[in-house]
């Protein structure tokens, strides 16, 4: 399943990249499973599991875990600090 993963702001710096484009193996149905998949190969992905991390799926802010579909863009975001 093709998917685009974005790392935003501080998470981009800590992951050392802005984006990954991956073809996920079968069985990764939601964002929690995606995080587990990423953690298996990259220790720095541990931070994506932190409860404060917010998710944007395509163009919507969504609660975790978010279901995943073919072609989705999922952004992992640190807590928002606007205003």
């Amino acid at each position: 399943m093709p998917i685009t993963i974005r790392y935003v702001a501080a998470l981009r710096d800590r992951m050392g990249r802005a984006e990954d484009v991956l073809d996920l193996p079968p069985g990764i149905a939601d964002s929690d499973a995606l995080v587990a998949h990423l953690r298996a190969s990259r220790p720095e992905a541990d931070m994506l599991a932190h409860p404060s991390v917010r998710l944007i799926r395509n163009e919507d802010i969504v609660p975790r875990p978010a279901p995943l579909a073919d072609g989705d863009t999922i952004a992992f975001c640190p807590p928002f600090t606007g205003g």
Partner: protein
Amino acid sequence: MARIDTAIIETDLDPAAELAALAGRHDSDGGIASFTGQVRAEPGLLALELEHYPGVTGKALDTIAQTAARRWKLSTAVIRHRAGRMPVGTPIVFVAASAPHRREALDAVSYMIDMLKTEAPFWKRAHTQTGSNWIEAVADDRKAADFWMDQIASEDA
């Protein structure tokens, strides 16, 4: 039907002009409240930089303004939020509410600025004399947003 007027601004934000544009617009309104946030001087701080998530931020601002307008029966809800790099003293955010009575306008402004802190995808980076760092979320901001969310959820129940 309330007027919802939100924007993300990459250049200068002029709070005085924004407020002047609201004055006298609705004869049935008795109160216009506003809040302006600006870059506060801190030791060593040169500038703040605001990053946001295009395609999502605008919708988040609209949702906050629409919720305020519905909850406090506003005639107008305005949000202006800067993005990009800003030196000390630069306005970052302007929020305003126009309503028949002052209490509604004042509470709506409190709600909107509290929600902007935690529910719109902006991230602040501090540029200092020794480098740059991302600013961490403040627990009290989360508490303020949760207070309003609980209030609105209990009223909608």
